[in-house]
């Protein structure tokens, strides 16, 4: 077969993925079930986690921050994505670029500047400022997938709906919204889980008062990799479940419009 040569080219990256993607994940699964001395323990690390005094608060804060961030990003991001697909607001396409530029500015720098601005304005640090920072960081990840799905919607559908008597508002709710759901879903997955597992944002914008899951895992890393692995395993399983649900919604197997 003359294809053999090209197929062979997949090998180096396949080996790389086996070593640096698959093996590390297997290591997490192994470390979650052994103790510090390497002896097997089925629930030991999970029990230790449950006994961590800080964990309930971390989980509660993560839920609050995760849901608030996703909701705010969706409420702000959807209208922006929608109007940016309209030529009257985004004639040259430069505007969408303006929403993406902050993504390329180091997020620590953005968070620290935000904090400095809040300090000047006299705004106290707390959950509110943390959620603000998370929205700041993740808003583009909500806008992009929704923007690309709405852009792909065939204009004929909307014209058809209006020809058949729907008002523009009705056509929006009956055509645009349902057809853009895959974008909304991938936006939500790109905002919700990353926002609760990011670390440093909370620390900076709450003056170290609050902790989300990401900060918690990072703090565990210093003294107990087994517990860090156990909680990482739980997170990965939750992520896998949410991916399965998202994929179910996108029945036709078409991706909901990735970020790139």
């Amino acid at each position, binding site marked *: 077969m003359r294809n053999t*040569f090209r197929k062979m*080219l997949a090998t180096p990256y396949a080996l790389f993925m086996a070593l640096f993607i698959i093996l590390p994940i297997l290591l997490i699964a192994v470390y979650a079930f052994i103790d510090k001395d390497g002896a097997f323990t089925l629930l030991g690390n999970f029990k230790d986690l449950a006994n961590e005094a800080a964990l309930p608060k971390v989980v509660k804060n993560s839920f609050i921050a995760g849901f608030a961030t996703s909701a705010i990003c969706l409420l702000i991001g959807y209208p922006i994505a929608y109007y940016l697909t309209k030529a009257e607001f985004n004639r040259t396409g430069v505007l969408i670029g303006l929403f993406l530029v902050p993504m390329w500015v180091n997020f*620590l*720098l953005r968070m620290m*500047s935000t904090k*400095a601005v809040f300090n000047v304005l006299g705004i106290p640090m707390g959950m509110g400022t943390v959620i603000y920072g998370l929205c700041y960081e993740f808003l583009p990840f909500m806008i992009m997938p929704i923007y690309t799905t709405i852009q792909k919607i065939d204009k004929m559908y909307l014209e058809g709906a209006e020809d058949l008597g729907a008002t523009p508002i009705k056509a929006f709710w009956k055509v645009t919204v349902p057809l853009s759901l895959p974008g909304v879903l991938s936006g939500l997955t790109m905002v919700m889980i990353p926002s609760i597992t990011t670390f440093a944002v909370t620390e900076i914008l709450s003056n170290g008062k609050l902790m989300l899951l990401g900060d918690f895992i990072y703090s565990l890393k210093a003294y107990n990799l087994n517990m860090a692995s156990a909680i990482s395993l739980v997170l990965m399983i939750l992520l896998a479940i949410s991916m399965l649900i998202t994929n179910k919604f996108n029945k036709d197997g078409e991706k909901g419009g990735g970020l790139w």
Partner: protein
Amino acid sequence: MVRKIVVRLFIAIILILLYLPIVWMIVFSFTDTPSFSNWNGFTLKNYIDLFTGQSSNASRIQEAVVNTLFVGFFTSLLSTILGTLGAIGLHAIHNKRIKAAYSTANQIPMINSEIVTAISLALLFNIIASTFQISGGTWTETAIKLILAHTTFCTPYVLLNVLPRLQKSDNKIYEAALDLGCTPSKAMFKVVIPDIMPGIIVGALLAFTLSIDDFVITKVNVTSFETLSTLLYGLKSGKHPLPADIKALFSIIFFIVFAGIMILYSPKGKAKEAKK
């Protein structure tokens, strides 16, 4: 009409909020104060000190810039090679199961939480270090660790940028090159690679920017090293978290990034892209 104004206003407010901290920082990079509120008159001192190495953090900044660029360059190189070869191979594979497994594994670092990827790599590096009796603490060892870790999360983006180019390009050209007597590797370099070059370049740039911007995976796996991100993180709890020279440095970086993205998204850039 009213709707138009409201929408414009809404977009403007969000953009202002997105840019306010950055612009504020840039403005105060032109005055001689570490704070964000006391304007001391316009000066280029921060920028001049930065380049002459006289500012308070100059040596740390220089070290961090060198380390960051070094890791970024080799990450970009390695992930571009791996990702391009991977994309060409994946495109030629027709076995559905292998294809699905390959793309799924490729997507794991993009979907997985960064902190989880970071911990998983830390476990791997720990094992490698203890098996081969390496301390992992020297400059070279840290650099290699970071390059490998960064390549892990950058290559997926390269692959996904190259793959669509391959899907658009005509398979028959490669076949024709073979029929006309090219060896497969020659056909690859003369026909396939030039055809997908735009995708490769975008992938390489993306890998470079992702690498120099990374914080979570770097912070978890770094030992004796400072990158721009870890340098910033180390400054976070100071009285003035962003000293004057740091403001100047990141203002420069911002202008470079801003110019780059605006060129990419400008109508002219789009037209060029379309021609390709």
